């Protein structure tokens, strides 16, 4: 039972960053801008956030430091998303181009900067993890849920769920959300009713920058003690989760939980006797999340569709 709870808690370390980043991607794509730059933005956010912790940890520690770092990571991500927005919106460029460029740019850039600003010219930015919460008082006593969510956790997990709820409300219940979706479905229609498509797309991309930047930090904090310009393909996986989740918040949650859980199993199987005793080479366990995802997709994609205008630069003059 404890092992099951552990697996579920570990799932959060995979799923929450995927969830946050995919939700970010959702805002961008729902506004009509493909965001393949999630990987690069995560790197940027991870770097700024971790570097901030690295610099501040002698003065402060614990949750407040993490909260501040969260804002810094968001700002870092936001910063890097701006050139993507500029290329996609102002330059009406192929949206994959600037995304690819940023994915190439960010890791090199943060390593270069880290070498410049760190005393020994080292690219790794180390941090002390003082953010772990062993138990959330009261809530941890709730049966099942308490064990899964409120023990051995980070505030970033709750932040992830909070962002999910806010995202779903913003997307479906607010004027902004409705206009954003219109821009991703039929920008000419949006334009013709006085919605500033360019502005909405800028905001969409910027939200994706903020969330992906945060995702870089959220990914790194629980799993390492330093950061070195890489998020190991998580940005692309978040993109996959976004598509898996059919650009809808609730489904993105399920997709990220599914994928995260499969990843957890494939990583921790050696601690689970009955899986270990199957004597299957680890490569096959490592493959299962990806194969399982393909299978689920094969059965669930018939009605899937992307926002209609995603990827198409909006040109007022075009018909």
């Amino acid at each position: 039972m404890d092992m099951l709870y552990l697996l579920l808690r570990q799932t959060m370390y995979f799923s929450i960053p995927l969830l946050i980043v995919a939700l970010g991607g959702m805002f961008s794509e729902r506004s009509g801008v493909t965001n393949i730059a999630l990987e690069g933005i995560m790197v940027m956010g991870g770097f700024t956030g971790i570097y901030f912790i690295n610099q501040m940890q002698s003065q402060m520690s614990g949750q407040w430091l993490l909260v501040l770092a969260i804002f810094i990571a968001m700002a870092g991500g936001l910063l890097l998303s701006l050139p993507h927005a500029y290329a996609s919106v102002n330059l009406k460029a192929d949206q994959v181009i600037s995304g690819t460029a940023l994915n190439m740019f960010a890791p090199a850039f943060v390593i270069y900067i880290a070498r410049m600003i760190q005393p020994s010219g080292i690219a790794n930015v180390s941090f002390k993890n003082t953010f772990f919460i062993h138990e959330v008082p009261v809530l941890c006593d709730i049966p099942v849920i308490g064990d899964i969510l409120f023990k051995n956790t980070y505030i970033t997990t709750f932040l992830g769920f909070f962002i999910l709820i806010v995202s779903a409300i913003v997307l479906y219940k607010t004027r902004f959300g409705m206009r954003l979706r219109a821009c991703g479905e039929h920008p000419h229609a949006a334009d013709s009713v006085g919605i500033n498509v360019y502005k909405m797309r800028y905001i969409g991309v910027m939200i994706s920058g903020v969330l992906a930047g945060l995702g870089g930090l959220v990914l790194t904090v629980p799993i390492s003690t330093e950061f070195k310009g890489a998020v190991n393909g998580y940005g692309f996986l978040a993109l996959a989760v976004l598509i898996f989740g059919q650009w809808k918040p609730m489904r993105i949650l399920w997709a990220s939980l599914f994928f995260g859980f499969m990843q957890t199993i494939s990583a921790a199987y050696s601690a689970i006797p009955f899986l270990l005793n199957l004597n299957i080479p680890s490569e096959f366990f490592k493959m299962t999340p990806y194969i399982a995802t393909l299978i689920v997709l094969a059965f669930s994609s018939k009605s899937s569709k992307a926002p209609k205008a995603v990827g198409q630069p909006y040109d007022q003059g075009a018909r």
Partner: protein
Amino acid sequence: MDYIIEMLNIRKEFPGIVANDDITLRIKKTEIHALLGENGAGKSTLMSILFGLYKPEAGVIKLRGKEINISDPKTASHLGIGMVHQHFKLVEDFTVLENIILGAETVKNGFLKMDEAKKKVMELSNRYKLYIDPDAKVSNITVGMQQRVEILKMLYRENEILIFDEPTAVLTPQEIDELMDIMKELSKEGKSLIFITHKLEEIKKVADRVTVLRRGKCIGTYNVEDVTKESLSEMMVGRKVQFTVDKKDITPGETIFEVKNLSMKTKGSTKNTLNKISFKVRKNEIVCIAGIDGNGQSELVYALTGIRHFDEGQILVHGEDWTKKSIRYRNSHGMSHIPEDRHKYGLILEYSMAYNLILQTYFTDRFQKRGFLKNDSIHEYADGLIKKYDIRSGQGAQTVTRSMSGGNQQKVILAREIDKDPSIMIAVQPARGLDVGATEFIHKKLVEQRESGKAVLLISLELEEIMNLSDRILVIYEGELVGDLDPKKTTIQELGLYMAGAKRDEVKA
């Protein structure tokens, strides 16, 4: 003179073409002002400028005598200008209600208040008899309802100046009549209307004044009382136009095209989209399928042309069973198809006009050799068609199709489909969006087909076209054929009754 809107000396260029050349348009308060012009004359462009979608290179716009700068649709909306676009601007994934309020939402602290909006929309809907289902997704409603949604969008914004860009092109006669009444009602309420149409009788019916454009230039503005249909059309195209088509009396020959008991099921419903449809089209015959939009016409055409599978029935051409034949087979064995939605099915907008003209024949020996395209032959062929069908565009055969006007895009399809010399031509709304000159032209072409021994199946919503062209009228209602009428012995009124489902006969092939 009390003008509410004045567009003075407007000039607008697009790559390779001057769409508006020194055009002046003045609209009086509460008038219905028709804007007339052949395809590509620049009507939509001029209105898009008024609505803030395009910026003119030169010219001044005045509202109530004051010079204004309309930088975007939002400004236009604030100034009380609303527009129903020629190509609807509706978000398919949204509901009717969401589409109507989009951009003018009622909110509290940024949160949508859909209930209030719905109340207001339903009030408007009832008042103007613009019936809609507010909760239906736009992707599931008929074109007619989409039109009503567009109009409601304008009314919801309480605009004073209303632009209708070819609103009647896709409506049934009854719907057109209703729209005319609504327009009159609106002008009585103090609104000013600009009305673009190619149908001269509509202008005669509702408009007070009319401005005629030709090839980007302004020909003049006239009181509708002072002009006749004939003079209008002459001004518009620069020559006399014939409104009725001369048809020789020919007795139809042997059956070319036959449909037997065709049925198509609807997903998740017991009622069939198409139910036991049977009919024949013979040599030297134009058979028309009449009906109100959304009664299964599109599905029938998709079934006949192989685009969609159907569940039961048989299609025979020259006695050969075509039920299971591929689209390619049909295309290359004598079937032509002028599709309803030219952007979705008819054209590859990113391809050049030349490449669109060979869309179904690129693999024939004329245009390829061992898998290689013969670009010289293709361009030669395209140039020929462009000349023959008077297709106008910026850069000739090289023009990217997307940049062409709607009418000229339609001509590309016509040229392609007619030039295939089909034995059976399936034409869906072939004159949709065409000016009188072009309409005359296509009608002539269809009759030519008939007279050269071919079969023509025409699917149309326009009664006049139907009565004019057809040798036989089949009426479709809720997926079934309910009437097989002879146009010479039927009145428009009677046809209307069949279309509304008020009258029906047993129809056998």
